[in-house]
C-alpha cells in the first residue's frame, strides 16, 4: 500500500467546497489586516491597556489550561472507563459549556460562586474569599469554557485506546493508578497535547463568561478580548491593534505546537 503512489487529480468538488470552507476563516483575517493602522501599530500595542491585558490573558489562559488538564484528564478517564448510572447525563453536562452562550455560563457561575451564590456565599462568609471581580474569577470562567474541549479530546482517545497494553501491565501486577500513569497517559499523549492546546486557545479567546462573572477592570480582570470589546466602542484602531496581537500570539503558539507536538503520533 504505502509504496504505491496513484497519481490522480483531486476531486474538484472537494477542492471547491474546501476552498470555500477555508475562505470562511481567511476572509475575516484579511478584513482585520486591511483595517490595521500599521504606522501607529507599535504605539497602540505598547499602551498600558494592551500590555496589562496581554499579561493577564497569558497568565489566566495558561493557568486555566493546566487546571483543565489536572481536573479534566481524571474526569475524561472516569467518563471513558467507569460504567456508572447517569454517565451520559454527566457527559452531556460536562460538554454543555461548548454550546451554552458564554454569557449564560458566566451568569450561572455567578449564581453558584458569586457573593450571594449557592457555594460562594458560605465560602465568603467563612473566609472572606471572593471569586467575582478577581483574577481567580477570570481563571474559573476560563476553566468553565475551556475544560470541555480537553475532556472531549482525551475521552475520545481513551475510548479508542487498544486495551491490551493496559491489560498486560495489570497482569504483571501494576496497580490501576500505575497503569494509568505509566501506560495510559503516555499512549494518549498526542491527544493530551491537542486537548491542552485547544483548551488554552479557547481560554485565551474567552469573553462572555469572563465579563459576566469576573467583571472588567484594567490590570485585574480585563483580558485581551475584553480590552478589544471596550476599545471597539472607543477607538477602532486600538481594537484592531489588540485583535492583531491576539491573532499573532494564538497563531504563533498553534503553529509552533503543531510542529513540536502533533507531527508525531498523528498523520500531519
Amino acid at each position, binding site marked *: 500500500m504505502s509504496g504505491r503512489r496513484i497519481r490522480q487529480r483531486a476531486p474538484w468538488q472537494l477542492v471547491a467546497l474546501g476552498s470555500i470552507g477555508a475562505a470562511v476563516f481567511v476572509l475575516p483575517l484579511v478584513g482585520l489586516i486591511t483595517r490595521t493602522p500599521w504606522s501607529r501599530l507599535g504605539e497602540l500595542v505598547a499602551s498600558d491597556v494592551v500590555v496589562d491585558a496581554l499579561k493577564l490573558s497569558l497568565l489566566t489562559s495558561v493557568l486555566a489550561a493546566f487546571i483543565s488538564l489536572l481536573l479534566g484528564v481524571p474526569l475524561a478517564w472516569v467518563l471513558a472507563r467507569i460504567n456508572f448510572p447517569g454517565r451520559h447525563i454527566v457527559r452531556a453536562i460536562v460538554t454543555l459549556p461548548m454550546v451554552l452562550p458564554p454569557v449564560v455560563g458566566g451568569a450561572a457561575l455567578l449564581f453558584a460562586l458569586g457573593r450571594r451564590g449557592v457555594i460562594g456565599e458560605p465560602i465568603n462568609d467563612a473566609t472572606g474569599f471572593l471569586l467575582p471581580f478577581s483574577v481567580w474569577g477570570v481563571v474559573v470562567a476560563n476553566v468553565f469554557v475551556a475544560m470541555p474541549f480537553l475532556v472531549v479530546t482525551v475521552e475520545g482517545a481513551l475510548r479508542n485506546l487498544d486495551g491490551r497494553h493496559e491489560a498486560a501491565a495489570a497482569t504483571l501486577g501494576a496497580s490501576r493508578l500505575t497503569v494509568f500513569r505509566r501506560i495510559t497517559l503516555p499512549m494518549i499523549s498526542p491527544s493530551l497535547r491537542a486537548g491542552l492546546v485547544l483548551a488554552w486557545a479557547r481560554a485565551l479567546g474567552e469573553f462572555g463568561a469572563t465579563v459576566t462573572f469576573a467583571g*472588567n477592570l484594567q490590570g485585574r480582570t480585563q483580558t485581551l478580548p475584553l480590552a478589544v470589546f471596550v476599545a471597539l*466602542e472607543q477607538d477602532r484602531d486600538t481594537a484592531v491593534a489588540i485583535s492583531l496581537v491576539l491573532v499573532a500570539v494564538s497563531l504563533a503558539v498553534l503553529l509552533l505546537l503543531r510542529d513540536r507536538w502533533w507531527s508525531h503520533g498523528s498523520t500531519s
Partner: protein
Amino acid sequence: MRNGVATLAAFTIVLLLSSCSGGDDRETVLVMAASSLTDAFIEIETAFEAANPEIDVQLNLAGSASLLEQIVQGAPADVFASANASTMQAVVDAGAANTSTPFAGNTLQIAVPLGNPANVSDIADLADPDLLVGLCGEQVPCGQFARQALDQAGVVASIDTNEGDVRALVTKLEAGELDAGIVYATDVIASPEIEGIALPANIDVAITYPIAVLTDSPNPDLARTFFDFVLSARGQALLADAGFIAP
C-alpha cells in the same frame, strides 16, 4: 447516525422555511435604541403598534456606542435613539442622520442592592476600597455621566468593574454581587431589586436623549411616523411613566 443527520437536516430546512414565510404582512420599522431606554421603548412599541396595526416595530437595544458602530457600518435601521448627544453627533457627522431632536432627559442615582447591605449613604462611599463598586465603562454614556458626577463631587471611586452597558451593571447590583454603582434614575424605577440614593444637589449632569430618522432608512415614512409618536403627548407620557424627565 445517517438517520440522525437526515432528521437534523430536515428539521433545519423546516425551521428555515417557516422563519422565511413568517405569515406576517406588516411593514417593519427597525429602531436602534440605547439600552437605558429598554423598558420605556418596549411600552412605546406596544402603544405604537396598537395605534398603527399595519406597522411592526423591531427594537434593537444595545449600548449607544455599539449602536453607533452598527449604524455607521450600514445596519438597515430606520430610527436611532441615543442616550447622549455626543453619540448622536457622531452619527450625524458620519452622514447617517441629518438632524436630531431631544425627546427625553434623565438623572443619575447611586444604586445599591435592595436593603443596602453595605450601608452606602453618600457618593463619597464609592471611594471605599472595601466596597465592591461598579460603573459603566467610559465608552458608554452612563459611564461618562457617572465620571462627571464623581469629578464634580471630588470623589475618586474605587472601581471594581467597568460594565459594558447600564443593564449589565444593574444586573450585578440586583444579584447583590456589587455594593454600589451609579445608574440612571429610570433604572432604579424599573428594577424592584435595587434602591436608589440621590446624588448631592450641587451635582449637575445634563443627560439628554436625542432621536433621529436615519438618512439610509429603508422606510423613511414609517420611520417618521415612529419618530413623531415618540415626541407626541402619548409617547412623552409613556416616557414620564418610566421616570424620564422632559429634555
